[in-house]
């Protein structure tokens, strides 16, 4: 695509175009900070420990709760950016902002201020899921289709996308007469006074019955829930995308 292709479609030219571009940048920068702050807070408060610690990233709860809590803001922002601007980047934008915030927090708060090695607090990524979610919305132009297929894909892609990062932390170690993963060993060695081992919500619950296939099952459950979570947050996004309140100020 050349730049002339883009210009053909533009309703504004000259000074108007320049001003509207300045407005674009203003909104983008503000949105960046807003999402970095708000989405990061939302994730830290809901699935914080699963995302913070390498020894919380289990086969059941982590792939169940993380996509469910991380599809929220993307759905809401997609609702605004797609409905009003036909911009298919809401999910990617949100997740990218989240990752910026997460990396800042991991490096400064966890590593520099609280001395944890960064590899113990590596965040998970949802960018592959977000890219697919944006693509599905753009190609289908439908909330229903995106809810069903996008929500499902968002959850199903989560564990496999992160496995290349975290598999090596599941290598077994013989330690203190027991078999541990390297991840478990981080939890034992690097003292966390506030989060004792028994608080870890991992490998517990009815899904245990399914043993080895717990992960796909968990991801599938998460997918089903995401198909419900997605439209719910789509409507939240829609409800907030109004100028009604601004006009009253």
């Amino acid at each position, binding site marked *: *695509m050349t730049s002339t292709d*883009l210009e*053909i*479609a533009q*309703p504004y030219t000259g000074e108007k175009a320049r001003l*509207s*571009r300045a407005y*674009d940048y203003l*909104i983008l920068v*503000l949105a960046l900070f807003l999402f970095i*702050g*708000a989405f*990061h*807070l939302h994730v830290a408060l809901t699935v914080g420990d699963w995302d913070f610690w390498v020894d*919380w990233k289990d*086969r059941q709860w982590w792939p169940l709760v993380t996509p469910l809590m991380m599809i929220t803001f993307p759905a809401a922002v997609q609702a605004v950016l797609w409905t009003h*601007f*036909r*911009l*298919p980047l809401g999910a*990617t*934008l949100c997740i*990218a902002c989240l*990752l910026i915030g997460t990396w*800042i*927090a991991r490096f400064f708060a*966890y590593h520099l*201020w*609280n*001395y*944890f090695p960064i*590899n113990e607090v590596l965040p998970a990524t949802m*960018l592959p899921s*977000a*890219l697919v979610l944006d693509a599905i919305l753009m*190609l289908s132009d439908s909330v229903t289709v995106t809810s069903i297929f996008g929500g499902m894909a968002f959850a199903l*892609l989560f564990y*496999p996308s992160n*496995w*290349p990062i*975290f*598999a*090596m932390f599941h*290598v*077994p170690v013989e*330690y*203190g007469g*027991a*078999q541990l993963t*390297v991840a*478990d060993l981080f939890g*034992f*060695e*690097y*003292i966390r*006074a506030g*989060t*004792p081992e*028994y*608080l870890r919500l991992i490998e517990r619950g009815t899904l245990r019955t399914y043993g080895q296939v717990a992960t796909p099952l968990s991801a599938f459950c998460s997918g089903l829930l995401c198909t419900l979570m997605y439209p719910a947050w789509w409507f939240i996004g829609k409800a907030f995308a109004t100028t009604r309140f601004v006009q009253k100020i």
Partner: protein
Amino acid sequence: MLKTIKKFLGLLGLGACCLMLAPSGAAAHGEKALEPFIRMRTIQWYDVQWSREKLNVNDELVITGKFHVAEDWPRGVPKPDATYLNVSSPGPVFIRTERYLNGQSSVSSAALKLGGDYDFKIVLKARLPGRYHLHPFFNLHDAGAVMGPGHWFEVAGDPATFTNQVKTLNGDMIDMESYGLANGVAWHAFWIALGSAWLLWWVRRPLFLPRYKMLQLGQENALITPLDRKIAVLMLAGVPLFVFGAQAMTDRQYPNAIPLQAGMDQIEPLPAAVNGLVKLKVQRAEFNVPARSLTIVAQIHNASDQPLQIGEFATANVRFLNPGVGPSREGDKDTLIAPQGMSLDSADPIQPGETRTVRITATDSLWQRERLDGLIRDADSRLGGLLFLYDANGQRHIASVSTAIIPTFN
């Protein structure tokens, strides 16, 4: 427009605050945070010792000690079915390399038995230079942290020299300080690059106002070009394909990967160390609030074959000593000791086989400084502790004390 900016700036401030979100529980100790009855009647620590005070990076520090799990466990506190012997420190300035409960290596949580006696050993390795106050303590599920006695340590040296090599079951030596970091960062960088490319693909065009206007004019088809569609289709097919391919390759690379381990350690209590040959029954306990003095009238039966003298009463890490009885405390830097804190109505030893009613008084401002005097205002105003008795050879007997407590306000 100005209003929109104002609104955004407000949200921006909020967002900035959110960024300050830091992990919890790093610096605070919380020694006195729990109600006195929980500190007195759950984990009763004694004989806690430290192998050294001054260390260099990579040096080992061994903390040993014993504790009795009170049989008079408070009703309002969940039973110790999931507990974790921890060390309070400002983050991982030390790493914990070994931990033993009753001589048994333990890396997970464990259940404790009421009335059980345990000893522990924690081996730490200095990681970062500094001056730190460490305590052994128990995280009790749904109850909180019951602190053991604390101590100051000084770590010197160069943090860069710290090493933590671990051998995996495959036989590889790994460096815990950097293991998996480069790989993790590379994967994040890869996806962030791809995500940024997608964002830039759109952001480089005129965005909000023109697109909104064209949508209003019904010209939305021009907003998504055929090339956009092609790229989206490519992404829709390519990303999952790549993700599952990378997953399969990772599986092949780490065929022995196991799930996170979530087992509990099974630890049996030691043969009774408390309430052995000495039996104690409290008849009345009074706490004189202004005098900061506890008086216990108790019937003590000595079933040992030696005369015994009462040497110490300990509760919530505060130790009231009967001067002259028991081992010398000279040079002990424990700040929670009241060296003259205990007095008795009779200094005569309790003879073998004798049952005697004794009046024990434990007086010190530590009651107030450690906020134990709040006990009388608790919903469960019972007291617990350990009474230490010694024979002439220094042999020690321990009896547990548990009693309702009556305040006197004079």
